[in-house]
């Protein structure tokens, strides 16, 4: 029979496993649309398409010194705009991202490592259109100085800016480019993200 002290230790470790590590700070995403800037670009022979969204919610738990933590982000497909209403409708349709069936694009990290300087190497599951693929992105972070926070009237707390850029291939997520738009839409899209995340919890959205 196991010694009672070992059982206590095991139970204590199991209880701690679900929480953020003691040195990790939780930064919340989604306080206001102006703090989220995500663009997605397709550069094809005939046309360049640029889309954006300012809606993302999630949490970034990080110990920036150690380079550990976790990331979870959710972007609603319905919030993505490309500048032409009809094209946005197509984007949400069954032919493309099928927003009715798959209303969100999500990223959930599996591993966070320290990169060079103010960089983190984040590996995780990127899910879109009902498919999931593991991706690794380099994220740069910068801490906003107290003075700048006051001047720019940010909400209370500590604030960081996270920036990253990566590529998403539509074909990896089961999205097929229809024949009639070949040459106008690229399979590979460049995604750029600049997100301010703060330690204060965002207020729930008013309905």
């Amino acid at each position: 029979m196991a010694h009672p002290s070992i059982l206590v230790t095991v139970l204590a470790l199991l209880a701690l496993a679900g929480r953020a590590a003691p040195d990790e700070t939780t930064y919340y995403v989604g306080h206001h649309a102006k703090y989220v800037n995500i663009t997605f670009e397709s550069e094809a022979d005939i046309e360049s398409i640029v889309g954006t969204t300012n809606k993302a919610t999630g949490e970034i738990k990080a110990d920036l010194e150690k380079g550990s933590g976790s990331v979870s982000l959710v972007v609603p497909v319905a919030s993505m705009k490309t500048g032409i209403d009809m094209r946005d409708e197509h984007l949400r349709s069954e032919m493309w991202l099928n927003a009715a069936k798959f209303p969100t694009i999500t990223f959930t990290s599996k591993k966070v490592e320290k990169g060079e300087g103010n960089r983190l190497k984040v590996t995780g599951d990127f899910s879109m259109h009902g498919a999931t693929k593991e991706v690794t992105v380099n994220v740069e972070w910068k801490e906003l100085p107290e003075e700048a926070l006051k001047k720019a009237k940010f909400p209370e707390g500590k604030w960081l800016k996270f920036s990253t850029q990566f590529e998403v291939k539509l074909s990896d997520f089961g999205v097929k480019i229809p024949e009639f738009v070949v040459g106008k839409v690229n399979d590979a899209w460049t995604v750029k993200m600049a997100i301010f995340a703060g330690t204060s919890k965002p207020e729930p959205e008013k309905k």
Partner: protein
Amino acid sequence: MSRIRDRIAKVALILGVAGSLAPPVAAALLSAASGRTVILVATPNSPDVVEANRALWTPGEPVAPLYGTPVGEPMRILFADPTRIIVPKEDPSLTLYTVDKTKAENPLQERTMWFAVRMTLYASGALLAAALLHYLWRRLRGPQAAVTE
């Protein structure tokens, strides 16, 4: 019947020549008169976010991201709205042009105009070729027709 064909060939020749010359000249003039090379900045940042970005910026870093997300390479646009142009104090050699995609804003790109010009040139070239083939055919068939008559 041949008269009708001749008339059609004449119209095709005129349209072909006009279509091959006028659009490129007009496009070049339009480009010179109202074209401007800019870096598009999608979803411009609000003034307080620009302020926060400035606090994080150090000389040598890219300037355009302070104001929004720069997209693509510098490009020429037509009929630029002066209120959307930003010449950043951090690098006055840059010209940024803000477009808010959430408000369905799409500036007219010069390459779109040149794409239309190219399409017109293809169509004009086809008309011109058809007209020239017709005249060639007439010329070759002319003496033969005279012999048979």
